[in-house]
């Protein structure tokens, strides 16, 4: 299982990020961000990681809800972060224009995560068209099937042939869209 999140830097910076910080970060985190060399970038990283951890937390049984300040992260010396609320790990990648965070139950699982990120500026203001475009990409990568969601809104790919459900993590922000899945370990040995 996994959780991922993408944060578009330009969109976040132009959309009330300092007030957003107050809603999402605990006082301890706000103090740390205030001392960071680049508070905006540090906040964008933290938010992406909190969201990725939350999405994995939902898969692990956490309730749907609004409690971002309770999702704390601890930096580890190996470059990963640890979220004690659900006992999961989070890694972060920076690319031009966005931060990408992914959460996994074990560090070894990170190498099994396959993800794709798309830049569709023409769809940034059309969430439904962006979702449709992502579904087309999923067909290209995963084969014929249907995107379904469970009661929590967690996405799965239901293959047209066969009965398997592939857990996915989808993330959108501004012009960016992404999907990710855990590739079974057996796929590496073949």
């Amino acid at each position: 299982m996994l959780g991922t999140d993408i944060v578009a830097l330009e969109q976040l910076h132009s959309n009330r990020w300092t007030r957003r910080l107050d809603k999402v970060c605990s006082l301890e985190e706000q103090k740390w961000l205030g001392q960071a060399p680049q508070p905006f970038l540090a906040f964008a990283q933290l938010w992406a990681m909190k969201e990725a951890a939350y999405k994995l937390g939902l898969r692990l049984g956490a309730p749907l809800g609004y409690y971002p300040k309770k999702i704390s992260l601890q930096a580890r010396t190996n470059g990963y972060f640890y979220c004690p609320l659900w006992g999961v790990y989070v890694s972060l990648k920076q690319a031009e224009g966005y931060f990408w965070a992914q959460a996994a139950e074990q560090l070894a699982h990170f190498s099994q995560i396959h993800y794709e990120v798309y830049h569709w500026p023409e769809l940034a203001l059309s969430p439904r068209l962006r979702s449709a475009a992502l579904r087309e990409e999923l067909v290209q990568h995963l084969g014929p099937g249907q995107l379904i969601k469970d009661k929590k809104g967690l996405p799965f790919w239901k293959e047209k042939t066969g009965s398997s459900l592939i857990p996915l993590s989808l993330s959108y922000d501004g012009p960016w869209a992404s999907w990710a899945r855990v590739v079974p370990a057996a796929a590496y040995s073949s």
Partner: protein
Amino acid sequence: MTREELTAALKEIMAPYVQDQAAFEAAQEDTHLMNDLKINSQHLVDIILDVEDAFDIEIDDEAAEKMMTVGAAVDIIQALI
């Protein structure tokens, strides 16, 4: 502002973030923002900020955690304006 007017104003704020349009059109007081309307956690922050701006109020953490249904959100706004 009547409760009906508050509800209408709240729904106008929520509209861009809703992912289940059918559920939104049929929304009642007990409609859940996340379970029913499929509003994600990132967009809940947008809604809280938009509500604060629209009604010139400040929603604290405790109130934000309780804003999970249309009715609860209206209750919170009504208590703060």
